């Protein structure tokens, strides 16, 4: 495509979506770092969801005679046990199931809500934008702890309440950022042209604004996943969270931290996995951004 044709030509709604998608997919595959990230992440996900079946015990089986065993790669407990005699590796894997699920779902939900909200506010401008942003400010300012307590009252202390508590305020910052992007985009020529061409506001938001803000949203969203996973450990102090004996990376890392100076192993395993997931997501996000960038030729 010639470099200076307006983007609307590339993005015209009459283009069959398959070929553009296939092109983007191919671009992503060529990014080796991103593919490595996908591979490692898939391995971790598979390990978490399938790995525990390889063991004769679960993460909840306590063995009081085997409390606090260390790393012994060829024993029944390759990475040792925790304070209750439960196998550490199985707990970390089982914890990964819950944490990764809530992490991805939470980040995705917050991201989608934030992007849509911000895009609409930024594009609409005027009174709509003012009202929407004032609502955001009120939600920011409201004391979070009270919100969490009330959510736990309403929804019980389980996973639904946890999810709601996390997502409720998580979408606010993506909304603010995307709104800023949307404001800049709305004044660009190709959007004016689209408007002149008769597209409705909703169509413009969906086909022009959102895709152009996606790279920032995806990159920000990749940083949100570990934040969601760790938020769980903070929320457990407020009575919401993963209930024992269910493990989660949040509570495992927290327990590991308090034992940091005596038994680093309890912290190292879940924390390393979490950091690895974060780096994978980073590379994947960059790869997605490169692949889906409408400006890229």
């Amino acid at each position, binding site marked *: 495509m010639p470099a200076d044709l307006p983007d609307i030509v590339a993005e015209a709604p009459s283009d069959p979506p398959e070929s553009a998608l296939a092109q983007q997919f191919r671009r992503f595959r060529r990014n080796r770092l991103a593919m490595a990230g996908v591979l490692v992440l898939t391995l971790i996900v598979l390990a978490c969801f399938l790995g525990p079946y390889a063991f004769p015990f679960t993460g909840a089986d306590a063995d009081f005679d085997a409390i606090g065993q260390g790393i012994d790669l060829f024993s029944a407990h390759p990475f040792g046990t925790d304070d209750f005699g439960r196998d550490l590796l199985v707990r970390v894997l089982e914890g990964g199931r819950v944490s990764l699920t809530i992490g991805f779902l939470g980040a995705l939900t917050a991201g989608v809500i934030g992007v849509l909200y911000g895009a609409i506010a930024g594009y609409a401008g005027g009174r709509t934008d003012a009202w929407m942003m004032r609502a955001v400010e009120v939600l920011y300012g409201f004391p979070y702890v009270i919100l969490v307590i009330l959510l736990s009252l309403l929804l019980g*202390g389980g996973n639904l309440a946890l999810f709601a508590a996390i997502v409720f305020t998580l979408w606010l910052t993506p909304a603010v950022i995307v709104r800023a992007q949307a404001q800049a985009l709305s004044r660009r020529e190709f959007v004016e042209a689209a408007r002149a061409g008769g597209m409705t506001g909703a169509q413009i938001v969906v086909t022009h604004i959102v895709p152009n803000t996606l790279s920032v949203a995806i990159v920000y969203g990749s940083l949100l996943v570990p934040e969601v996973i760790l938020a769980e450990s903070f929320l457990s102090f407020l009575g919401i969270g993963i209930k*024992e004996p269910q493990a989660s990376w949040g509570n495992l890392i927290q327990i590991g931290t308090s034992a940091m100076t*005596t038994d680093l192993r309890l912290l190292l395993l879940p924390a390393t996995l979490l950091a690895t997931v974060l780096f994978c997501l980073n590379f994947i996000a960059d790869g997605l951004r490169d692949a889906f960038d409408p400006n890229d030729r």
Partner: protein
Amino acid sequence: MRHAFRHLTGGLVLAAGLTLGQTALAQDTVLDRGVGSEWSSLDPHINFDAAAGWIQMDAYEGLITFGPSGQILPGAAERWDVSADGTTYTFHLRDGLVWSNGDPLVAQDYVDGVLRTLDPATGSEKGYYFTSTVQVAGAAGLVDGTTTDPATLGVTAPDDRTVVVQMESPAPHLLDLMGAFAMSPLHGPSFAAHGPSAFIDPALFVGNGAYVITQVVPQSHVRLERNPNYWDAANVAIPSVMYHVTEDVATELLRYRAGEIDVTYDIPLNQIPALTEEMPDQVRVSPATEVVYYSFNLTRAPFQDIRLRRALTLAIDRDTLESRIVRGGSIPSYSYAGGFDPTYDGPVIAEATMTQDERNALAQQLYAEAGYGPDNPLVINIVATVAEISTRRAQGIALMWQQTLGVQATVEPQERKAWLDTFYAGTWDVFSDNLVGDFAGAETFLAYMRPSAEAGYNWVSPGFETAMDAAAVLPDRPSRNAALALAERILLDDYIFAPLAIEPQRRLVNPALRGYEDSPAGYNNSQWMSFQ
């Protein structure tokens, strides 16, 4: 508006000053103590926090004072007489007592302190000591506003050196309440001139304790210096004491290691085994005046069967629980009120002498008799607080009940206020319960278990009430303790809760510090301490 501005600029100046200035770290002339979260108040008639009570015990002195290991010693009063029926205590103050500013300290100051505590306008929870823990004549009337006449109070000062406390029924534990925590005198002129600021502003502070408050930085620390006008100032060795706010127990440990703190408020739970090995003489874990037990919800069907309650009580391996799972230093216990007062020879649950295997077997039998088994397991929830020691204990007990009986118990940690609210709402099967005593004795715990005192347990026991009433009229400790033991027998035999443990105090103490001893009531006055 100007008020706020003045504070803001003052705060900025202070912060800037502390940032630019360089203060040296603690030296051997300053005793640095951790106090946990910030004191709720430095007002001696309002403060209800035990930790902030340490500041109070240093800054004020009651009629009695507590020695290094918590023993009762003469304080402002050099001796006291007790009437034959045990209801009237006459305290004789020392000669020549003065406040820190030189004003004479008179008996009426103590009476004024109590009056202020009971005054509804003060809004103090401590009136409870004078209306519930002991029944001082006239106190209840002043608290609920029936009368405002100070002359109705049973605490009087017939002359400048005599304080008379008149109670409606005998209570040998009155002496435990005559320390500075419940019985601080009131310096009339300061309070009349400045109101409550007289207690928190170092420039206005007037006290009668071994130390005076010289610096208060909210959220940071309180500094005290030796009071030259204290009657025993010659025996106060350490010139300065600093109480530091130590919210984070892990940070407090690091500060202790760095030498910034001499006596910590607590020890991180999972560091205790390692620290005990590394520095055994510095780790001080000793019983506190707090008991931990698991209450059963008597309004719910399963728990109305005493066999089930007994089964759950017995299926807990208390030794393994505290030593290997919770590892917080709690002392396993098979009774409720025993273990605080050495002169109290209290009962234990019937099965205390069995081995754990025998208890487990009996528990399984009772569980089956109550109608539960593998195809009909008991499904319950345990409501605990989010504190680490509480959730560990709950998890451990849930595991034990599951392994021994097949009970399916879920642990529901709740933040503190919600946890308390849940108790009264009755939405629990098993409640992780605890009680802090007002003094190191049995009666303070047993009195709380009266259905008339705490209806939340929904326990009906006229026998217990009668036994407690019988004990309440006895004037001396030995006979009273014997009667209380009978009452506790009735309580334990009904298995309305599973007694678990006595909670400890956990401190790290600088090995160079002398005079710090294990004190069950939790009082460690700085005046007894010295650096080697």
